[in-house]
């Protein structure tokens, strides 16, 4: 094959009608034959120009062509010497390839607007092209690519092996090592027929010459002939800052590691980013890239691409009435009363006064600024809840930096993915936290909480201790106050469904959250808080009230005993208790161990708040009883918006039964609307606040998240209704304006007779004596599912439920279950031990009911 040819007609996913051969001159002016995929509707919105890298070919864009060619003309050429284009004797440099692509697009008579989509070394080529065709270009999408190879970054092993002078031709051309090595980077592995399709134009060594040339053309050295061209392309990006750009990234890429993404983000600060966690170099094979490009193209066509974040209108524009998160620390800077108390086994182990906290936060924040922790720098906080975390958190805020907080429950791999993805630049931690950070390969300044022995300090690479920062900062002026619109935190979701998502808040949103918490629960200046629930353990100083952390493992709520609670209440004469349901259950379980005096102390509490997971009425009632019958509330919300609604124990006692879990009325300042479900189970209908309409719960308020971090597509989807956040929960409002939660959007069951939501029927099943826990799931293709009940029924054998049990389940739920299965244990989330993984249950039920498996 020397001239261009057509691919075999049977390559998976490739329509032979897309292929054509086009003639255009190469960089030396010689006419060459190109193989080009070209598909278009009669009246295209514009042109999508897809530029592949090495060692792939236009085949890599087949899904993009399928997805977009109904509305756009999509063109994907094979570079000369690559794919099914002509093999030339010429060594094509980067500069040649930019010239050649320009000659080709001239020959193809492409019409603007042009959306450029490029992968790998197609990036520099297409960006060079875009800089020359600025007037045509309306958008850019880059997939795992780079425009610079600075000397101080190490060269990936795959590339350095390939670039080794003696090995170059062996690795890249004489053998298929480089080709096959690249194809093995897919996650999961490519189907054999797809991998074979990638290999189709590269069967012989002579066909692979340009693969070798491409590798040889990577300007690793300063004096490399293509270095100047690459630098010109990189510098030219400043001129493209008016072009909407999306960076789509597969982080599991040994070649284009995260630092190349950071480099692109620095050079293109206007770019949006979507990281597909778990995807790698061949991100287009690993993740729904085509659909994402489609959304971006749709937005381009509709003229909306810039801001998919919270509407600025929702953020306060003036700071006249602003009350910062640390305002109380300034107001009480001379107050010797306790601000934060940490309980030990025998009473208060540590008491920090307002004065101490205020000066520590001031000094440490100034120290942070002094050592170069800049405004908007991201700082991972790997410190357990307590006085130390409180101090460094407020110091980080005060310094204008952005704390990144992820739950240790994510596990090391999850934590690593989260913190690396969030582009953390500094780490503050206890020894265990810093050692984990080191294991995760986090770069940047390491700051320790507490002093370590010199050996440990060296081993962990500690740059400063917090005490040293305070000393540095003591003589310095306070850091400047971050604006209300500055980013204030990145909080990671639990990761119960897929990789944890980073949720970005701005100061205005956290300040609003604080105020909503204060107003919802009527918190007064003279209240004092037992903070047994991690997030709220940090909110005491912001609320301006003293807080006490009981003697417990705050990351394991079930470790809170009634005695530890009573001691904590006594320590600051607490009036409020914030705790998770697991903590409440243990308090109730251990209530009998309280003596008269402890009981009396507990009865001084005026408000109990259960948060973090759904709580049963029984638990709330019993816990309130231990606390002398105090008022009990449980708020509804999520990492992205908390609280959304609130319900009291009385309301639950009076009217807590219905189709779903009653979570109460929207709290003050927060709007709730429902996006009704279509028959396919999609929440696609316009928002409504009509009662008794089931759909996705949508929230709007000043404390709702700003955006998801580097998850452009996720953010776009969650914020697709102007100013609203889609929660992913389904539910309905009743005639009294109360909100009921019926499950998750992903757990909707779509039967031919209509949509079924799981929570209501599950609750009805769990009221039956033999049933301990129930999951109601769908089995079968979307829209044609049957409803199946899967229950924990301790006295029943595993397998298909007995006729008697099936009959009582059908009767109780009012649903014609196709089948009922009994299992020993339903899969529940590790953290709360209560949220059932219905997708897993559904998959298990489908397997069993297909008759293939060996039964539950």
């Amino acid at each position, binding site marked *: 094959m020397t001239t261009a040819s057509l691919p075999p007609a049977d390559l998976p996913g490739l329509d032979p009608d897309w292929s054509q051969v086009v003639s255009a001159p190469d960089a030396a002016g010689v006419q060459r034959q190109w193989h080009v995929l070209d598909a278009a509707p009669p009246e295209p919105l514009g042109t999508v120009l897809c530029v592949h890298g090495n060692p792939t070919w236009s085949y890599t864009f087949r899904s993009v062509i399928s997805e977009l060619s109904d509305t756009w003309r999509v063109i994907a050429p094979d570079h000369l010497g690559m794919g099914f284009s002509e093999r030339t004797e010429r060594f094509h440099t980067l500069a040649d390839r930019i010239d050649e692509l320009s000659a080709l697009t001239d020959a193809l008579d492409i019409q603007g607007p042009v959306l450029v989509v490029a992968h790998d070394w197609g990036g520099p080529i297409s960006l060079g092209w875009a800089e020359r065709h600025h007037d045509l270009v309306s958008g850019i999408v880059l997939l795992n690519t780079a425009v610079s190879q600075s000397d101080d970054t190490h060269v990936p092993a795959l590339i350095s092996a390939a670039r080794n002078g003696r090995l170059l031709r062996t690795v890249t051309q004489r053998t298929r090592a480089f080709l096959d090595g690249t194809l093995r980077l897919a996650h999961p592995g490519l189907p054999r027929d797809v991998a074979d399709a990638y290999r189709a134009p590269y069967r012989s060594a002579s066909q692979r010459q340009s693969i070798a040339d491409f590798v040889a053309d990577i300007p690793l050295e300063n004096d490399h002939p293509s270095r100047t061209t690459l630098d010109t392309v990189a510098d030219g990006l400043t001129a493209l800052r008016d072009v909407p750009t999306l960076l789509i990234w597969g982080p599991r890429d040994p070649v284009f590691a995260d630092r190349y993404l950071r480099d692109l983000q620095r050079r293109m600060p206007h770019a949006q980013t979507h990281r597909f966690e778990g995807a790698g170099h061949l991100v287009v094979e690993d993740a729904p890239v085509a659909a994402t490009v489609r959304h971006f193209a749709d937005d381009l066509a509709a003229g909306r691409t810039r801001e998919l974040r919270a509407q600025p209108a929702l953020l306060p524009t003036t700071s006249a009435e602003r009350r910062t998160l640390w305002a109380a620390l300034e107001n009480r800077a001379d107050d010797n009363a306790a601000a934060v108390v940490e309980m030990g086994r025998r009473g208060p182990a540590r008491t920090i006064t307002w004065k101490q906290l205020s000066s520590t936060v001031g000094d440490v924040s100034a120290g942070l600024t002094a050592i170069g922790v800049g405004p908007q720098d991201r700082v991972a906080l790997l410190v357990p809840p307590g006085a130390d975390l409180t101090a460094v958190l407020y110091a980080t805020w005060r310094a204008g930096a952005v704390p990144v907080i992820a739950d240790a429950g994510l596990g090391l791999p999850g934590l690593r993915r989260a913190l690396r993805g969030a582009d953390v630049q500094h780490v503050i931690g206890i020894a265990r936290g810093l050692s984990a950070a080191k294991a995760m390969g986090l770069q940047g300044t390491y700051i320790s909480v507490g002093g370590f022995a010199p050996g440990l300090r060296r081993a962990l690479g500690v740059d400063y201790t917090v005490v040293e920062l305070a000393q540095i900062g003591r003589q310095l002026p306070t850091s400047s106050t971050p604006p209300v619109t500055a980013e204030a935190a990145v909080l990671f979701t639990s990761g119960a469904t897929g990789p944890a998502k980073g949720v970005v808040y701005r100061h205005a949103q956290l300040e609003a959250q604080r105020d909503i918490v204060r107003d919802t629960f009527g918190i007064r200046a003279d209240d004092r808080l037992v903070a047994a629930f991690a997030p709220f353990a940090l909110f005491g100083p912001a609320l301006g009230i003293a807080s006490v952390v009981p003697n417990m493992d705050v990351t394991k709520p079930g470790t809170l005993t009634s005695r530890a609670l009573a001691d904590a209440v006594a320590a600051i004469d607490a009036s409020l208790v914030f705790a998770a349901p697991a903590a409440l259950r243990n308090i109730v379980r251990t209530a009998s161990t309280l003596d008269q005096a402890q009981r009396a102390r507990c009865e001084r509490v005026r408000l109990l708040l259960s948060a973090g997971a759904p709580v049963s009425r029984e638990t709330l009632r019993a816990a309130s009883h231990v606390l002398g019958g105090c008022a009990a509330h449980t708020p509804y919300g999520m990492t992205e918006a908390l609280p959304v609604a609130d319900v009291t124990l009385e309301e639950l006692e009076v009217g807590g039964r219905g189709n779903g879990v009653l979570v109460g009325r929207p709290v003050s300042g927060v709007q709730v609307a429902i996006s009704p479900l279509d028959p396919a189970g999609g929440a696609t209908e316009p928002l409504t606040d009509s009662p008794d309409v089931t759909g996705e719960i949508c929230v709007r308020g000043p404390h709702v998240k700003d955006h998801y971090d580097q998850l452009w597509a996720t953010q776009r989807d969650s914020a697709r209704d102007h100013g609203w956040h889609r929660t992913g929960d389904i539910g309905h409002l009743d005639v009294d304006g109360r909100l009921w939660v019926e499950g998750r959007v992903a757990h909707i069951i779509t039967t031919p007779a209509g949509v079924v939501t799981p929570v209501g029927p599950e609750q009805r099943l769990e009221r039956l004596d033999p049933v301990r826990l129930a999951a109601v799931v769908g*089995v079968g293709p979307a829209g044609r599912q049957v409803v199946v009940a899967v229950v924990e029924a301790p006295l029943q054998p595993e397998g*298909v439920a007995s006729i008697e049990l099936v009959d009582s389940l059908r009767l109780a739920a009012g649903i014609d279950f196709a089948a009922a299965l009994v299992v020993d244990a339903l899969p529940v989330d590790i953290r709360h031990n209560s949220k059932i993984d219905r997708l897993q249950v559904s998959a298990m039920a489908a397997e069993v009911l297909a008759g293939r498996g060996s039964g539950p």
Partner: protein
Amino acid sequence: MRVLVTGGTSLLGRVVAQQLNDRGDEVVTMQRGVAAGSWKQVRGDIRDAAAVSSAVEGADAVVHLAARVSVVGDWDAFESVNVSGTQNVLDAARAHGVSRLVHVSSPSVAHFGEPLVGADADAADPKRAHGHYARSKAMAERLVLGAVDDSLAVVAVRPHLVWGPGDTQLIGRVVERAASGRLVLINGGTALIDTTYLDNAADALVAALDRVHDVSGEVFVVSNGEPRTVAELLTRICRATGVPEPTRSVPRIVASGVGVVVERAWSAFGRDGEPPMTRFLAEQLSTAHWFDQRHTQERLQWAPAVTLAEGFERLAAASHPS
């Protein structure tokens, strides 16, 4: 309308004839033996082209139920009845100007061993259908659908596991085996399957006859639209008929192996009747097959009138006459 029903001795054939007769159609049934019923009957073998021709003569419509339904036997036996017999019906219909043909087919023509979950009426495929019965029925279905033209409207209906009082195919076998302690659940009976109560299947065939001009050339699976586990179905049949419930469970792989051995032994000894287990049956009772009924119900303008629960009550009432 004058309607010929072939296979008049089958339970479904009898109920269809009864329904047509009751509503005033002029019914003729054709079968080898003598069937109950007050309508005109013709004795004859579907393999006999002349007999079929004379039975069809004068009819406006044919409901073709006659088939060899056994799970054992050699290919010729199935081919001659299910394929050539159907060809005889087609030839006669053409010769005598019949305008409507309802061909009773089987979901097994498109069941190739994999679970069918919320399935449609996929195309019949003789090459992939399992066993002589399904293969011959697949060939027959293709034959009739290929015969559609302006003068002859044809619809193929696949009722799924029809049962009811008096049924010897499913109920009869279950009862017989349960009574002799030979009823076992394969893999715990967890496979989800569709069944059709007898009267509903008959209603659907009558609806197809009435709608055939609007749905000519189409294929429909008919069921109650209430899939259930095999365990539940067998248990309810046993309870309704008063025989011991199945308790033991054998893994499918074992059951399948037993089927092969028994089939061979049965034919080697030349015994009459049917072996207790065949591969086909093992597959039927251990693999999901249930269907999306919306299209069928919409196109035939039919819906099952008798729920499974009512069906089991009727079965119990018929089994224990008070």
